């Protein structure tokens, strides 16, 4: 048995009661560790349970909540629409709601390998474009300025557009970094390393503070658009390194065979190399996507309202002031749900890709 298999066997949950007994009470030392863990859990879990469920107030006013002593889930119920959609006009909430369904629906479809075909590219563009139009209040109706967009649709829009927008850029950067042309190679290395060397917040500040100064007088770019472009650029640097790893995994024989068939550089890349390279890095791309989904929260620092910021600011309402634990708990559950689903999906995909390859 190889070491990996042995350790994987040890780390996987055992199926037999005897394995459980040995794993928990196999030796005196082991039993002591189990006891210590039980004491720790007995100390930590009951108060949490009491706060979150037993003493919690599910309905009622803020005063009733404070009297109950536990978590105030009534506050989340009261603020749910604000947390999900931010400052969007309440009587037009069907717009961000539809945008949300559109984005989520497309994400689910794009995740299924049976839909991986060229037609998905225009479909993805249509889904993103549709979501943007819906949020903008077009067509038909008063346009909604971007500073009123917020909540979960904004988070998903920034993450999806960030990933899809970065993809072509990342492929070009990765190809450029492996190119035989010195100037192209140098330019790509510099772009990738500088972006990877600075924090996302720095890139966002450049987009908000410096870019307006660099545009000719009279020309202005929307703040949300600038933030989105900053996220796309930032993501593309990390994605380029993932794509490069995929390119390196393609055997040299594939390049030579393509050349022998008379294919040029772009033909070789498009038809032979990239399909193989990208296939191997899909799980890493999903992991990157989870990270970017979480990193979109940083737009708080430039005053935009993603779902974390709406949750936080909902606890600053004078009527419901101070319910930060509930607000953060709710936001944490949202992110936890998305991230755990995505990482399970990534594991499933990895298994599927290795069995069909």
């Amino acid at each position: 048995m190889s070491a990996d298999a042995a350790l994987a066997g040890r780390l996987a949950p055992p199926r037999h009661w005897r394995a459980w007994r040995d794993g928990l009470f196999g030796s005196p030392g082991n039993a002591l560790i189990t006891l210590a863990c039980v004491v720790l859990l007995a100390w930590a879990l009951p108060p949490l349970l009491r706060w979150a469920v037993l003493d919690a107030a599910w309905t009622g006013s803020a005063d009733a909540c404070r009297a109950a002593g536990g978590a105030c889930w009534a506050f989340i119920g009261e603020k749910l629409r604000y947390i999900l959609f931010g400052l969007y006009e309440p009587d037009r909430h069907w717009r961000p709601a539809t945008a949300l369904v559109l984005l989520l629906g497309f994400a689910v479809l794009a995740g299924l390998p049976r839909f991986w075909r060229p037609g998905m590219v225009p479909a993805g563009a249509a889904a993103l474009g549709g979501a943007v139009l819906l949020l903008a209040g077009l067509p038909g109706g008063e346009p909604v300025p971007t500073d009123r967009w917020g909540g979960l649709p904004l988070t998903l829009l920034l993450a999806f557009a960030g990933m899809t927008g970065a993809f072509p850029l990342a492929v070009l950067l990765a190809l450029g970094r492996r190119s035989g042309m010195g100037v192209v190679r140098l330019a790509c290395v510099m772009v990738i390393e500088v972006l990877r060397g600075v924090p996302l917040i720095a890139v966002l500040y450049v987009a908000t503070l410096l870019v307006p100064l660099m545009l000719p007088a009279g020309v202005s770019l929307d703040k949300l658009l600038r933030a989105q472009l900053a996220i796309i650029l930032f993501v593309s640097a990390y994605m380029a390194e993932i794509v490069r790893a995929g390119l390196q995994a393609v055997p040299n024989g594939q390049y030579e065979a393509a050349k022998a068939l008379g294919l040029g550089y772009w033909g070789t890349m498009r038809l032979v190399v990239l399909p193989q390279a990208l296939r191997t890095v899909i799980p890493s791309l999903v992991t990157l996507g989870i990270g970017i989904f979480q990193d979109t929260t940083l737009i708080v620092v430039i005053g935009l309202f993603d779902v974390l910021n709406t949750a936080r600011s909902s606890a600053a309402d004078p009527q419901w002031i101070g319910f930060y634990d509930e607000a953060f708990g709710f936001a944490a559950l949202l992110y936890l749900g998305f991230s755990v689903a995505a990482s399970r999906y990534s594991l499933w995909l990895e298994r599927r890709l290795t069995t069909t390859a």
Partner: protein
Amino acid sequence: MRAIVTNGARAAAAWWGDHAAAQLGLLAGTVLLFAVLGANTLENMERFGIRPGFEFLHRAANFEIGESLVAYTAGDTYGRALLVGLLNTVKVAVLGCVLATALGLALGIARLSGNLLLSGIVQVYVELIRSTPLLLQLFFWSATLHALPGPRQAFQPVAGVFLCNRGVFLPALRFDPLGWDIPQLAGFNFTGGATLTPEFAALLIGLAVNAAAGIAEIVRSGVQSVPAGQWEAARALGLPRRRILRLVVLPQALRVIVPLLTSSWLSLTKNSSLAVAIGFPDLVSVINTSANQTGQALETMAILAAAYLTLSLAVSVAMNAWNRRLARRGWP
């Protein structure tokens, strides 16, 4: 001589590659783009009455900074303010890396333990931390530390350590005479000992707890990468378990762990920029205030990028050197 010249020319040609004209075009296009953007910037700065250049660093910065390693008061120069921010960033990054590594090592070992309950608890911890945004975790720690009771009702988890809404108070080492300086409650606050402000403590705890989850996974994968045959061979030689770990397993595991540890320290350093969102005056926070007050966006952003690139480069160079040594000798 001629050979050297031809060799040089050949190397240059190899570097340059094909399509020289197109590449020259690309180069010229990039230079032109930056020239246009630069000209726009200068024009806009003149319109707003901002003088380009780093001369503003000598002007007085009229804002307070919450905490500082060097003396600073409002009215000192912008240059000094940026230095305060940089030192704060370095302070939180260094302490954060040390704490995260210690915690991550402990968690990684716990994850590898034969005890199912302990290993399961660590697994849940890692999953929970990795599935929520760091900023959310920092908001949580910040809210928790600010919601602690006042100094008179301070928690005392260990003798001499006090937790309250004014921050964390720790015993400090005193040199003259040698001994411990224990914080004492005096009036409405503690005096003596070492003080961590609530903002700094929240950032430090948040960064360390977050990075430790990643480091635990790195330690686990490193130890798992050592083949079982190595354990068996060492046992066949009659080595006790402790010496097997020290002499056989860890040296091989470290070759996997160290490069990954580097990138985890680098991301902790970059993540310390989230300080700006919870009110700790790190470099990004001071840069943001300075840029808003002076309008010198170009200069301040250049300083910001240069500072982070230098920090990243310094950490990678040091860790690469250590890694080479490790690959050669097998033991730090």
